[in-house]
């Protein structure tokens, strides 16, 4: 028995498959974590770098302040010294050739030879140039110190292609006057190197007037930084036109001067470690995500494969392959699920088997019952048919007896009156008598078959029944009779008249079957199963064709040219009425054996 095929669910769409969704979810999670971690780390590192840069700028500013204080102090000292030389005051008091030469000598000896000093001027108290180391002056304006104790630093001034600044000192004495020293701004290679060492190559150092007018990078004029010059505390960020990226800057006033200086770093250089960190982190994150994806894929695959096997097994069982099992040997939940599934499948299979066995058993019972019913029905039909036929036979038989009797009388009369008649007349009378006798027998048979009286069963032996009927049948020309009745054969419990009728019928049939050629008639008695005696009549006739074996006991079935087909039907009914039965076995050409079963007597022998 095959279960009904169930509809198998369609294949899972890829977007719904756990095998895809799990790795994707895991990958997304890993990516998210990596993004958050990287961002947080980057921001932290960047902040640290910025803090570091700020501290560095502050430190640098401090250092520069100190340096500037010292160096500018020296420069102011130099100018003051020059202003305090006597020839300078003498020249200003009285301008003669001698004083001029003396002052000129002082200027030349003490000033113009010095590096960076472009022009040294001696000016009177009104500020007019009285003596100069050069024919042209840099600028008219110069810082005018009120007291002669120190020099004063002036603003940057752009002149021609250079930036200059002035240092001025008051000449002592009632005549007043000033010494003004113009210096060219320009760092030599050594000082540039030093500066680079201090602030780094990426950094820029700029100087300018505190009013923002002139700015320089110590070699040339530069645009002013876009910063608020009124608020110099702390770190400022800005961008310069033409300069890529943001700049980080710290500005301060150069002590003792009208100058401001700024130190600039490109933010890029400051946050470069953070950016490098970010790149590394990104690489690591990509690696992590990839690894996570692969791991998730492997994991989900490992989980999915048993699931697929489960699904496959369930589908196979549903499709009728009852013996299919999952057989997962895994120590985890999936293994347990597989074992449960297999157990369930075993139980289902067992139940199905039991059910099938039960159905088979019931079917067998049913078939047996059906067979019995059919037998009973056949028996009933046969009896019914017999009763009907019997009714007819009885009427016809009785009615035929009278004319037969009359004919018999007539023949008897003729035989008497024609005792001396010719042989042929007497022969014909004999034929008449024979046929009347035969007709009488047929009528007797008809009447016998038409009425089965209630069996009056008693104890008797098959031997005696057989002997009685053989006597009635004698003489049997050309027929050899063999009898085989064991001495141990029990008595039977039947109506002797009925049993005799059955046996007579079997013997008559057997003899008729063998025909004129004759043959061997074998009678045999044997015990079957302890309580049934079988009386077998075997002939050496042509046998019963297989297709007729079932039908020979049907009423009105006959293969004889003569006969109305009641003998075996009546015999079977008689046998059954006596608690026995009648059956036949035959192989064509090998004769037939009729088996008359009779109940053995339970009375003591």
């Amino acid at each position, binding site marked *: 028995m095959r279960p009904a095929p169930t509809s198998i669910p369609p294949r899972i769409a890829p977007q719904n498959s756990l095998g895809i969704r799990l790795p994707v979810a895991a990958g997304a999670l890993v990516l998210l974590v990596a993004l958050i971690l990287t961002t947080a780390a980057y921001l932290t590192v960047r902040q640290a770098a910025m803090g570091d840069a700020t501290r560095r700028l502050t430190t640098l500013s401090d250092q520069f302040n100190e340096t500037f204080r010292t160096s500018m102090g020296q420069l102011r000292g130099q100018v003051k010294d020059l202003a305090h030389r006597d020839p300078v005051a003498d020249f200003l008091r009285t301008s003669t050739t001698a004083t001029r030469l003396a002052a000129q000598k002082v200027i030349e000896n003490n000033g113009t030879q010095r590096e960076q000093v472009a022009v040294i001027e001696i000016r009177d108290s009104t500020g007019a140039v009285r003596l100069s180391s050069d024919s042209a002056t840099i600028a008219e304006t110069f810082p005018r110190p009120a007291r002669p104790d120190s020099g004063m630093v002036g603003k940057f001034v752009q002149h021609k292609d250079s930036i200059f600044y002035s240092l001025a000192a008051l000449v002592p004495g009632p005549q007043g006057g000033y010494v003004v020293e113009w210096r060219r701004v320009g760092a030599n290679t050594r000082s540039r190197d030093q500066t680079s060492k201090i602030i780094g190559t990426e950094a820029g150092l700029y100087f300018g007037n505190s009013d923002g007018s002139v700015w320089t990078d110590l070699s040339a004029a530069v645009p002013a930084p876009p910063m608020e010059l009124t608020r110099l505390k702390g770190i400022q960020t800005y961008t310069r036109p033409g300069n890529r990226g943001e700049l980080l800057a710290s500005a301060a006033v150069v002590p003792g001067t009208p100058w401001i200086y700024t130190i600039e770093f490109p933010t890029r250089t400051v946050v470069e470690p953070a950016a490098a960190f970010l790149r590394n982190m990104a690489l690591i994150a990509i690696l992590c995500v990839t690894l996570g994806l692969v791991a998730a894929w492997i994991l989900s695959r490992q989980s999915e494969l048993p699931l697929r096997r489960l699904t496959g097994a369930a589908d196979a069982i549903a499709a009728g392959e009852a013996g299919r099992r999952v057989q997962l040997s895994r120590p985890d939940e999936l293994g347990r699920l597989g074992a449960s599934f297999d157990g369930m499948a075993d139980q289902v299979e067992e139940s199905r088997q039991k059910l099938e066995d039960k159905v088979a058993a019931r079917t067998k019972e049913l078939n047996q019952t059906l067979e019995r019913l059919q037998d009973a029905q056949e028996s009933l039909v046969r009896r019914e048919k017999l009763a009907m036929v019997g009714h007819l036979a009885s009427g016809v*038989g*009785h*009615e035929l*007896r*009278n*004319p*037969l*009797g*009359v004919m*018999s*009388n*007539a023949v*008897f*009369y003729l035989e*008497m*009156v024609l005792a001396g008649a010719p042989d042929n007349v007497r022969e014909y009378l004999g034929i008449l008598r024979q046929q*009347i006798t035969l007709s*009488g027998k047929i009528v007797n048979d008809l*009447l016998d078959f038409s*009425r089965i*009286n209630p069996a009056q069963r008693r104890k008797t032996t098959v031997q005696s029944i057989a002997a009685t009927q053989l006597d009635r049948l004698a003489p049997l020309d050309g027929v050899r009779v063999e009898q085989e009745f064991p001495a141990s054969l029990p008595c039977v419990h039947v109506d002797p008249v009925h049993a005799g009728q059955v046996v007579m019928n079997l013997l008559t049939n057997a003899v008729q079957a063998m025909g004129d050629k004759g043959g061997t008639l074998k009678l045999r008695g044997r015990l079957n199963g302890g309580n049934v005696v079988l009386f077998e009549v075997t002939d050496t006739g042509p046998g019963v064709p297989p297709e007729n074996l079932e039908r020979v006991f049907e009423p009105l079935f006959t293969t004889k040219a003569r006969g109305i087909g009641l003998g075996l039907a009546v015999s079977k009914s008689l046998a059954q009425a006596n608690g026995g039965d009648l059956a036949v076995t035959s192989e064509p050409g090998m004769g037939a054996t009729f088996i008359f079963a009779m109940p053995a007597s339970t009375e003591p022998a």
Partner: protein
Amino acid sequence: MNRRILIVDDDRAMVKTLCDIFSLRGWEPRAAYSGKEAVAAQRADKFPVVLMDIKMAELDGISASKVMRTEHPDLKIFLMTAHTGPYSVREVAREGTYYLLPKPIDIASLLSMLE
């Protein structure tokens, strides 16, 4: 020796053949064709033997034989019947009839018995 016999049957052919056979054997048969007729004949002529069919339209053989037996206790009655079943035999035996002949009757045996 009184060899008179009353033969009763409503089948005339049967009666005729039997009468002829008995005549031929030196008997004086007398035919009757119903039970009623048989009873009348018996009253009139007192036959010593009656051969009578049981199944007849006008007074059947058993009823007729009952009447005859009461009137002639010594009477030998042979009843012929087409029914050979035990029922008929028992019924006839109860009526005290001694001879029952199944049809078709074995005329030779009957003759030898009577003679």
